[in-house]
């Protein structure tokens, strides 16, 4: 990835993080921690990798994205807004009565959302169905899904993983957002799904391990996945929950808590400083 592209992605990721904070602050609820940990991956997918057109969000040949960890919708919404699926101003209406931006993604209400999710473990199955549809119809679109590392404690994830490899769905990429934290504590303490790469390999997947905040590593992983034939690919991304907002980083307590006015100001100051640094 060239330096200019990387810088553009870093700048966009900064805007997306501000959108996450803006949305969750205005809603006085939501999930900032996991939204910030997947921000770089989602930014990369929508601004550098996926074939999607905000003017034609239902194009049958588009790449599909399923946010299996649906609670981190604020990150998806911010990415979709900046991509042009709907106005950025809409982010402030997150979780408000009648808003297009529901607490968890709704494909019926939000342009660009390919599947309604929120109940953990279920999104990946729908992504598998979309990938299977692509194979049946001989279409070359690809399907991407992002799972939480706590989410993979759900048994259905492994039903889906088994099916995807049994059907050779190499048009499917599942990212595991390995920020190491779930609501009740670290994933290792609660009900350890570790070692994650070995589990996906055992289920017949191609596995790539990356640091999920390095655009170089993200880029290399998705390009490798695009070339890999015969198996679905799992990208196990080590990430930091609450990334780029200092007081939210690696803190379980920021899983599902909105910042107060003071915390909101501080978060925006930090993100603006980062943006200024990138744009300098």
């Amino acid at each position: 990835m060239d330096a200019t592209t990387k810088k553009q992605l870093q700048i966009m990721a900064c805007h997306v993080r501000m959108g996450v904070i803006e949305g969750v602050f205005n809603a006085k609820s939501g999930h900032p921690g996991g939204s910030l940990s997947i921000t770089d991956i989602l930014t990369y997918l929508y601004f550098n990798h996926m074939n999607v057109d905000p003017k034609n969000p239902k194009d049958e040949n588009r790449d599909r994205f399923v946010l299996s960890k649906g609670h981190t919708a604020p990150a998806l919404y911010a990415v979709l807004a900046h991509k042009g699926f709907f106005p950025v101003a809409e982010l402030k209406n997150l979780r408000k009565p009648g808003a297009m931006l529901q607490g968890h993604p709704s494909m019926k209400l939000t342009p660009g959302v390919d599947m309604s999710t929120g109940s953990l473990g279920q999104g990946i199955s729908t992504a598998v169905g979309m990938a299977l549809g692509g194979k049946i119809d001989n279409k070359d679109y690809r399907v991407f899904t992002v799972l939480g590392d706590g989410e993979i404690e759900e048994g259905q994830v492994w039903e889906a993983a088994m099916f995807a490899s049994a059907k050779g769905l190499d048009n499917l990429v599942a990212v595991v957002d390995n920020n190491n934290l779930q609501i009740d504590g670290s994933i290792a303490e609660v009900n350890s799904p570790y070692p994650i790469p070995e589990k996906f390999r055992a289920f017949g997947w191609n596995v790539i391990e990356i640091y999920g905040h390095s655009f170089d590593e993200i880029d290399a992983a998705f390009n490798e996945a695009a070339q890999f034939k015969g198996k679905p690919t799992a990208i196990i991304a080590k990430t930091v929950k609450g990334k780029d907002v200092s007081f939210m980083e690696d803190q379980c307590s920021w899983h599902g808590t909105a910042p107060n006015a003071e915390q909101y100001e501080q978060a925006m100051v930090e993100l603006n400083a980062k943006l200024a640094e990138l744009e300098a």
Partner: protein
Amino acid sequence: MADVIKTATRDAYGKALVELGEKDNSLIVMDADLAAATKTGMFKKAFGDRFYDAGIAECNMVGVAAGLATTGHTVFASSFAMFLAGRAFEQVRNTIGYPHLNVKLGATHAGISVGEDGASHQCCEDIALMRTIPGMVIINPADDVEARAAVLAVAEYEGPVYLRFGRLAVPRFNDPDTYEFKIGKGIELCDGNDVTIVATGLMVNEAMIAKDMLKEEGINARVINIHTIKPIDRDIILKAAEETGAIVTAEEHSIIGGLGSAVTEVVCEGKPVPVVRVGVEDKFGGSGPAVEMLKIYGLCASNIVEKAKKAISMK
């Protein structure tokens, strides 16, 4: 009199899928390792490349079906009622119901008439569960003629549908040459003015026998076949309440949450008259030959007769 044809509604389901497959080459059928029993195996044999077995993983099957539906395919996904409506309830609710996707759930082996397999497999709660999902259409055919017609009709309908089929061969009473099926439209099988029997599934045939038994006692019973439990035909039920003043419902399902509840809701809010329910009375099933189990659980014409008289006495 010619011998009565007996066919399980699941057989009609399998045959109708093949019929649909011949017309629509984008139709996909899924199963969860029960293709021989649910009869989707007939489709698998005819169109192997459009049949996908999810293995023993119903929750994932429901999700895959939902994903496939977003790509423009009509999908029929099958398993036993217990595992489709029961085990995968939340997947059906969240990934099919909430986005209102075009998935048809073909649930077989519903009710007590599963027989020897016993309580773990005798799902008498599925209608209750599915009724709570907004936008879900629920169809419980009474014989093979109705089952075929229902499958063909729902294939033309855009949106989620729960189809309920039985394992047991049941008598055909509809005429295949004249039978007409319309989603949400109840069928008055015979008129009467003393009481109305509102039945669904294999209890419709019992209702017709009960009507004859009541006739011998000088009671004229109206019989209504409610094949579509949701959306329910309010008009035909309220008209019956108005004109006959007493109702008995009959279903091979728990008396909680199924047809009996649905009819009671309509009647209480529209034209209050006595409603007495025939169904599985808040009990788990048990092992035994299907016909015997139906008797043990009070799902016969004689039970309808008894409850019909009770309803009349409450007028």
